[in-house]
């Protein structure tokens, strides 16, 4: 059952994103930036937290999960550290993925050549 919910939620986000790329003038970059902003706003309202509880990876893997993790870091770190938690906590959860992606991308670009 959890797999079905993950499939439906993740697929729904991707389907809407594809429809927006096709029907409107937005490019892929606009849609990704919009998804991240929407995830951050929904995370601040506290709704995305519940979606992650229900859908698991289906809510975390789309780019809106990235925005949610940014906000979640501020919320959980800022509760203890006041205003300094905004800047420090913003990378609390997402820093793991971001730094890993940057380092691995760098070394992959070191080894692999582009094709096509």
């Amino acid at each position: 059952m959890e797999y079905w919910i993950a499939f439906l939620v993740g697929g729904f986000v991707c389907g809407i994103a594809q429809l927006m790329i096709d029907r409107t003038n937005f490019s892929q970059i606009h849609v990704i930036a919009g998804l991240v902003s929407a995830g951050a706003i929904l995370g601040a309202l506290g709704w995305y937290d519940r979606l992650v509880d229900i859908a698991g990876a289906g809510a975390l893997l789309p780019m809106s999960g990235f925005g949610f993790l940014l906000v979640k870091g501020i919320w959980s770190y800022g509760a203890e550290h006041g205003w300094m938690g905004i800047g420090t906590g913003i990378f609390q959860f997402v820093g793991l993925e971001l730094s890993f992606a940057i380092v691995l991308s760098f070394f992959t670009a070191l080894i692999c050549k582009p094709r096509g």
Partner: protein
Amino acid sequence: MRLRDNYQKAVKQFQPKPPYVVNSLKAFVSGGLLCVLGEALKKWYINGFGVSQEVAEHWMMLTVISLAILLTGIGMYDTFSQFAGAGATALLSGFANSLVSAAMEHRSEGWVSGVANHMFKIGGAAIVYGIVVAYVLGVVYYIM
């Protein structure tokens, strides 16, 4: 302005109409299947390795990112994303793919001004907008 409108109208009938429904269905199915793979990985990490839910979520995202980067390195992610469209690019794997493909594309220009400079050409939008929106929301939350 008039000419521009006329041009837009005149050129519209010659543009091929993208198959909206088929494209979205492809994105829906492939994006959903990637999320199912992530969910299965998460379950496997929780049950097989006995880690907590939060750690398993991070491991799952790291696995998806490294899978996307390795597939981009050997040139297979491009074929997949041509089929899946937003089903491949709107996910975290698409973000990793945009970083590494931009870095690989400009590696001939050097390690600093090529790879490092161009790495965030596409993925930078997600980072900038995410941080700006989250920071503003954090300031609002702190004031209130």
